[in-house]
């Protein structure tokens, strides 16, 4: 199951890097040179990504042409909005290395740093 999630990530990165639309065949040809992978695996993974709302597709002859529903930048921005929102706005349990600081906290940190600078040669 872990491996499958990883393949989804690899495919999405390829599709974003590529720009434009891609068929399963296009992506399979590109990946085949680098890793041992079956055409059906690529096909089912792209189908999953379509079902989960990451890829849009339209029929082109016998095959589907896939493209990302949103750009990587748009998804990044959405994630960062969720991550940076105050504790009340997001219910996701994210543990920040450094929590968002309010004014008094920044001032307190600056005070520590000023003392630190004095303490250092």
């Amino acid at each position, binding site marked *: 199951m*872990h491996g499958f*999630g990883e393949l*989804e*990530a690899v495919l*999405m*990165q390829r599709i974003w890097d590529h720009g434009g639309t891609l068929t399963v065949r296009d992506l399979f040809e590109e990946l085949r040179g680098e890793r041992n992978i079956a055409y059906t695996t690529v096909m089912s993974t792209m189908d999953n990504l379509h079902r989960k709302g*990451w890829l849009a597709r339209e029929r082109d002859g016998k095959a589907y042409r896939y493209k990302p529903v949103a750009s*990587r*930048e748009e*998804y*990044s*921005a*959405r*994630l*960062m909005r*969720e*991550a*940076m929102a105050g504790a009340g706005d*997001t*219910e*996701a*349990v*994210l*543990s*920040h*290395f*450094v*929590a968002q*600081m309010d004014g*008094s*906290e*920044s001032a*307190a*940190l600056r*005070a*520590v*740093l000023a*003392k*630190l600078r*004095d*303490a*250092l*040669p």
Partner: protein
Amino acid sequence: MITALALLGYAACAAWCVPVLLAPLTRRGASVRAGLAAWLTAMASVLVSAAVAIQFSLRTVAADWPQLTRALCRSVAGGACTPAVYGSVVYQAGVIVLAVSLTLAGAVAAWRYGRRVRRSRAQTRSHARAALLVGRAIAGQARTVMLDDPRPAAYCVAGRPAAIVVTSGALAVLDPPQLAAVLAHESAHLAHGHHALATVTRGLAAAFPGVPLFTRGAAEVARLTEMAADDTATRSSGRPALVTALIAIATGAAVSSAAAAGAGIRGAAAPAGTMAAAARAVPDRVERLLRPSSRARAAAFAAALTLALTLLAAAPPALTFLATR
């Protein structure tokens, strides 16, 4: 009835008094483990007391029910309504009101807790999944991805699998030892199940809004888990790398970890007391890393917290025993 009231009185008192007593003992993180254990034991102690109180009052209602109906019947019948019966109706009505309102309060709290935990779990998992799909892999680091954003930030998010996210803004201000310290800190959260503690304590804070033990407790548990992760990261990456990484991400400006190590950021050369009493997570963590507690101080705090923990754990059974004797 006496047992239920005794336990309820204790639960209410503890829910408001314990934060006042515990917060000063855990604020500086002199003894992180004992601090976490004390806060969690306090929460469990209050929850157990309330649950047992509900159970006792329900049992009293069940036991007195036949007597109550007889009394009501007599009072409706009129002439047979003696003062003794009248008194007993009031008493039993009181018991019923107490039992029903406690049960309702418990049910509302349980419902709020469940809703909060379910939503939080769903959002957490979907965030982790999306981060792993959208972020670019950081070489050599499993489940660690970089997101493009100029604001320096690093965080971990529980999920299946969990993810560690570092922004491009953070990578720009961190040198390799500092990045290693940040990743060690975040891995410690995931390895030690800190997200589970956060889910439970935030769920309880949502279930009992305005009750200091749970609202303040959730914040204090979060602070203590940060300090615990700092301790793990310090062991693997060293104090200078971690402190300078904290400062770099907090201020958005690069600070060389090597220079700091050379200048002696180990605790000995640290500045003396700089903080006011308010609980401020980041400055407190920096100060704690720069000026670690002495062994004696840590042992004293651990002893005090262990005593508090023992009393809190003993209170519900002791009260039940004394009141039912």
